[in-house]
C-alpha cells in the first residue's frame, strides 16, 4: 500500500526538502519505518531513546489521531495521508 506522509516544515530539511513522501506499508508503523529507511536523519526527531514515538508528536491518518484508533498498528490503505504534527501549542485532546 502506498501512502503519502506529509513532512512538517521543521523536518523537511531532513527529507531532501520534500513536503511529502510516498511510502509503502501495511500499517502506520511499517510506513514510518520505510520513511526512515529513505531518510534516516528523521529518526532522532520522531522517536525517543526507548524507540517510542516522542510524546509531543501527534500522528494523524486521514485527519484521525492514531491514538484513538489502533495506534501504530492502524491499517494503511492505498492513497491514505499520514500527517506528523508537533503539539507545540499543547496537543490535541
Amino acid at each position, binding site marked *: 500500500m502506498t501512502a503519502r506522509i506529509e513532512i512538517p*516544515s521543521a523536518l523537511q530539511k531532513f527529507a531532501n526538502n520534500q513536503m511529502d513522501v510516498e511510502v509503502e506499508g501495511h500499517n502506520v508503523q511499517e510506513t514510518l519505518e520505510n520513511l526512515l529507511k529513505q531518510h534516516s536523519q528523521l529518526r532522532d526527531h520522531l522517536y525517543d531513546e526507548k524507540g517510542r514515538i516522542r*510524546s509531543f508528536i501527534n500522528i494523524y491518518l486521514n485527519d484521525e489521531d492514531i491514538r484513538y484508533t489502533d495506534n501504530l498498528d492502524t491499517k494503511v490503505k492505498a492513497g491514505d495521508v499520514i500527517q506528523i*504534527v508537533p503539539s507545540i501549542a499543547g496537543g490535541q485532546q
Partner: protein
Amino acid sequence: MTTPAQAAQELPPLGQTLTSLIGNTPLLRLAHLCPAGRLLAKAEWYNPGQSVKDRAAWNIIHQAEVAGRLKPGMELLDATSGNTGIAYAMIGASRGYKVTLCMPASVTPSRVKILKAYGAELILTDPALSSDGAILKAREMYRADPDRFFYADQYSNDNNWRAHFQSTGPEIWQQTEGRITHFVATLGTSGTFMGVSRYLKSRNPAVQVVEIQPDSPFHGLEGMKHMESSIVPAFYDPALADRKMTVRTERAYRRVVEASRREGLLLGISSGAALEGALTLCAENPQGVVVTLFPDSGVKYLSEHFWNDTLEDMTPPSGTKTP
C-alpha cells in the same frame, strides 16, 4: 454635614486595579533540587493572567495608549501561541478593547476556552507552520485593515523587552540583594531574556546571562523558539548571552515531573526547560546564586501525555548532574 456618599467620593478609591497586580512575583528557593539553596526562580504564575506574559502585554498596551496609537474603538491584534493572548484578552476586557488573536490550530482546547471566556476572537492557523504561520496571518490581517487594528506585534515591539528591563530585572536584583551571579531563561519572543539581562548587566556586568533554546526546530516546548529556523524577533540580540544552551523536549518534561514530585511545584513546560538549564549552572558553580524564571504553571498542560509516565520511564537528565 458630609453624607457617607459624599465622603466616599472625596476619598481615594478602595481596592486594587487588575493591572496593578502585574509583577512583583515571588522568588522561590528550590531547596530540594538544589540543597545548597542557590537556585532561585521567579514564579510568574502569580501574575493575574497566570503567566509572565502579563508584563509585556500590559506594557505594550499601556505605552500604546500613552502614545495615542491605541484608542477606544480600536481592536488589538497579534499572533500568540497562548499566554500572551490570555494576557491581551484579560487586559483588553478590563479596558474595553476587542482582542483578535492568530494562533496555530493545535492550541489546547482548554487554552481556547480561557481566551473565549475573556471574549477574544480567535483566528486559527495551520499547525504545521507553528507560530510562524500565526505571525504571517496577523501581518496579513493588519495590512488589509490598518485603521481597524492596533497591531501589538509582541515579536517586534520594544515595549515587550522594556517591560522586563523596568520590572522583572529590578525585582530580581532587589530580591537577591544584588547577590545574583547567573541568570538563565528560555527564549520565546526573547523579551524576558533581553530585558532582564540588560538590567542585570547594567547593575553588575559580571552577572552571567544564559539563554535556552529548543535543541531542534521540531520540539514540544510550548512558547519557546528555535531561532535558527524561526522568524527571529526584531529585538533579539544574539550577542547578549554569555552562553547559549539547548534543551531536548523530553528533558524539560522530566524536570516538570521532578519539580512537581520533589518541590511541590506544578510547572509549565518552558519552566521545565528553564529548570534544566538552571540545575546545570548550579552544578557547575558551587558558589553561584543562580536565578531563573518560570513563565507559567502546569495547570494548562495537564492533558500532555508525559504525565502518564513515571520518572523511571522518562529520559534521564544526562549531561546534567543534580546537585
